[in-house]
């Protein structure tokens, strides 16, 4: 980020190969250092040439796919930024948002949420941090989703990101930042007046709980009007995302405040006075209940509390954003509540004056301070009972008899026959689709059963037996399935690591259940070839000492091996106890065992 004189802004510069830093917008050359990128060598104290610099382990050790995700997210966010014209001169917001997105990825925040929602929330968070005048509803409008949906994702993101700190550090939006957004250059007077109006609105408690943009729009409208520029309301509401009714309401509210009655000059004069007086103000009035805290409640833990449990900086911010606690008109919501209270009071007064006896209200009395709630005709029944609530949150079984319930009353809750009939008709009419679905399901079930039965119809004499068999088989299958699953689970737990490759593969296949079509025998053979040949060898050794059977086998093997001397084939074919044995043994000349040659005669 360097400052470009021509654009009079901070820009992200572009650096060409050999070190010229130029502005990415106007192209003006900002820095002219030449950098060399080859490694440099220096001589150390012993006169030995050494590489200057160190090898640094890569800090960013993220995987390729993660990098790709982040880059894609950055692209999307840049697109959003451009579409909303957030900040044409630098990518700062996108970088900040990208960092939030990275943390979110690590905390698995993107799982189960649409990625564009998460990106918008990250971007909005970045905008809030940099005090950019953009509303959640701008993003929601761009994405064409409900603003409350985006809002919920945003709130969850805040929670996830600040998990480490344990504190919500998001700053509040000051409506004044929106003024510049909605005006273009040259209307300085309008802007100034608008800002004054907004400050006055804040002091008159019009702003708490309201959307910042709406107030801003109203302030601008008034300010423009006071300077003779007539904007149609439709223009304002297009930019500000409030409807005309709301705008009118705000104007009326402002009219009702004291400031609304002043003329323009008086108003400006008053603002100037207030501003100068605020500079000389010292310790503010901290309200009726002093908080006797030694440390601050805000996040600047090391500072001393100035007022309301806030450090000086936070206090100033609070005053600027909200307008403080002193004086001004009441907030409109409060005014409405007050009106309602007075209305109720007057109704009560009338009722009381009309009727001499207060039979209806029972134990109620109209209170002077307006703490009156609704007047009812029933007595207050539960006041005494509520102190002790027997078994309310215990897990008792109080079912036995419902003798405390009035049966007559309960009967009143049940329909009589005719009513039942009518209700049935009505209900079936209303829920016709559901009933049809259920009927279809049942029909399908019955049809399946029928098909099964039809198969058995072909052998009628065994019908019953077959059915029973089928039922029993099904039961066994189910049971065995269950047992199998349980056994498998138990085995998987108990079995240690596999001893051979075959076992390992089998374990893996069993666990993953890739296919029931795997031929385990072939699998075993796969790993068993060297073992098989060893077995063969063992057999041959034995044959030299053994009886006829072994000899038979041995000779067979010999035949298989194909090392049998053709000339002796006949002899080899006679399998009886003969002195030719040794000769036959000698014919096995492919494998030198050392035993066969020691025979001198049998």
């Amino acid at each position, binding site marked *: 980020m360097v400052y470009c004189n021509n654009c009079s802004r901070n820009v992200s510069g572009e650096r060409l190969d050999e070190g010229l830093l130029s502005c990415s917008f106007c192209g003006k050359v900002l820095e002219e250092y030449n950098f060399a990128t080859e490694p440099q060598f220096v001589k150390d104290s012993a006169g030995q040439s050494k590489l200057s610099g160190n090898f640094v382990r890569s800090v960013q050790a993220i995987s390729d796919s993660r990098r790709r995700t982040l880059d894609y997210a950055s692209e999307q966010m840049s697109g959003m930024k451009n579409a909303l014209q957030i900040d044409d001169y630098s990518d700062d917001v996108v970088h900040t948002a990208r960092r939030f997105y990275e943390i979110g990825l690590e905390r698995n925040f993107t799982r189960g949420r649409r990625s564009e929602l998460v990106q918008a929330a990250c971007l909005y968070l970045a905008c809030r941090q940099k005090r950019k005048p953009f509303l959640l509803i701008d993003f929601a409008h761009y994405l064409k989703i409900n603003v409350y949906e985006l809002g919920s994702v945003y709130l969850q993101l805040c929670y996830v990101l600040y998990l480490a700190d344990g504190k919500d550090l998001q700053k509040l939006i000051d409506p004044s930042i929106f003024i510049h957004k909605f005006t273009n250059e040259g209307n300085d007077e309008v802007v100034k007046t608008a800002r004054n109006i907004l400050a006055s609105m804040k002091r008159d408690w019009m702003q708490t709980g309201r959307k910042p943009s709406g107030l801003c729009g109203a302030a601008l409208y008034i300010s423009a009007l006071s300077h003779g520029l007539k904007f149609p309301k439709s223009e304002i509401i297009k930019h500000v995302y409030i409807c005309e009714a709301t705008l009118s309401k705000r104007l009326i509210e402002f009219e009702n405040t004291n400031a609304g009655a002043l003329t323009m000059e008086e108003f400006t004069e008053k603002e100037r006075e207030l501003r100068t007086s605020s500079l000389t103000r010292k310790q503010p009035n901290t309200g009726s209940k002093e908080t006797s805290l030694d440390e601050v409640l805000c996040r600047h833990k090391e500072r001393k509390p100035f007022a309301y449990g806030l450090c000086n900086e936070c206090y100033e911010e609070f005053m600027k954003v909200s307008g403080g606690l002193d004086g001004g008109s009441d907030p409109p919501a409060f005014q409405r509540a007050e009106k309602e209270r007075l209305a109720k009071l007057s109704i009560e007064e009338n009722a009381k004056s009309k009727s001499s006896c207060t039979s209806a209200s029972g134990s*109620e009395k109209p209170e002077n301070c307006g703490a009156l709630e*609704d007047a009812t005709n029933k007595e207050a029944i539960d006041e005494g009972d509520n102190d002790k609530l027997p078994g309310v949150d215990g897990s008792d079984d109080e079912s036995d008899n419902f003798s405390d319930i009035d049966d007559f009353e309960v009967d009143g809750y049940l329909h009589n026959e005719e009513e*039942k009939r009518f209700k049935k008709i009505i209900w079936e009419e209303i829920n016709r689709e559901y009933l049809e679905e259920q009927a279809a399901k049942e029909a399908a079930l019955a049809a399946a059963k029928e098909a099964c039965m039809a198969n058995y119809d072909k052998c009628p004499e065994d019908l019953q037996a077959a059915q029973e068999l089928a039922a029993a088989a099904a039961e066994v299958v189910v049971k065995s399935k269950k047992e199998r699953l349980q056994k498998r689970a138990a085995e998987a737990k108990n079995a240690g690591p596999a001893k051979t490759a075959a076992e390992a593969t089998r374990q893996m296949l069993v666990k993953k259940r890739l296919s029931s079509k795997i031929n385990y025998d072939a699998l075993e053979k796969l790993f068993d070839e060297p073992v098989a040949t060893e077995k063969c060898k063992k057999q041959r050794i034995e044959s030299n000492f053994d009886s006829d059977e072994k000899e038979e086998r041995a000779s067979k093997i010999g035949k298989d091996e194909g090392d049998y001397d053709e000339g002796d084939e006949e002899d080899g074919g006679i399998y009886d106890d003969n002195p030719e044995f040794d000769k036959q043994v000698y014919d096995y000349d492919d494998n030198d065992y050392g035993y066969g040659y020691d025979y001198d005669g049998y």
Partner: protein
Amino acid sequence: MAEQGGLEGSQPVDLSKHPSGIVPTLQNIVSTVNLDCKLDLKQIALQARNAEYNPKVCTGAKSEQQSKLAARKYARIIQKLGFPAKFKDFKIQNIVGSCDVKFPIRLEGLAYSHGAFSSYEPELFPGLIYRMKQPKIVLLIFVSGKIVITGAKVRDETYTAFENIYPVLTEFRKNQQ
């Protein structure tokens, strides 16, 4: 069931229990009970008055005792319809209360000083959502001074939560000229 807070009007507020002098009224109580038997919902819906059955989707009481009474009445109704209903595990799940402190509150100040517990987004919702840790209760605070307290399982939690927040609210009250 139409009983609405006649509680405060009936006797003076006990200041030892409610130092602020204001008692929240309970607006809604949600409770559950286990009837311990299978129910044919369609049949019940057809036979009982005031019963709706929407196959495609025991609240409203204004006091715990009423809630329990209502639950028992419903169990009795179901018994009469022929199901062997019992009354097990009655438990109150949620109590919602509301009250009015009668002075305007600067929500921004609360958001600044109690940022760890408050969530104030005027773009989304005009009230401040305060999540108290002890007792674990959620309060909705509005600029007009009206407070909604929810999440309590017993009535006392509601009262405690309100007494805890009251001093904070007075700190950010509007200073009348």
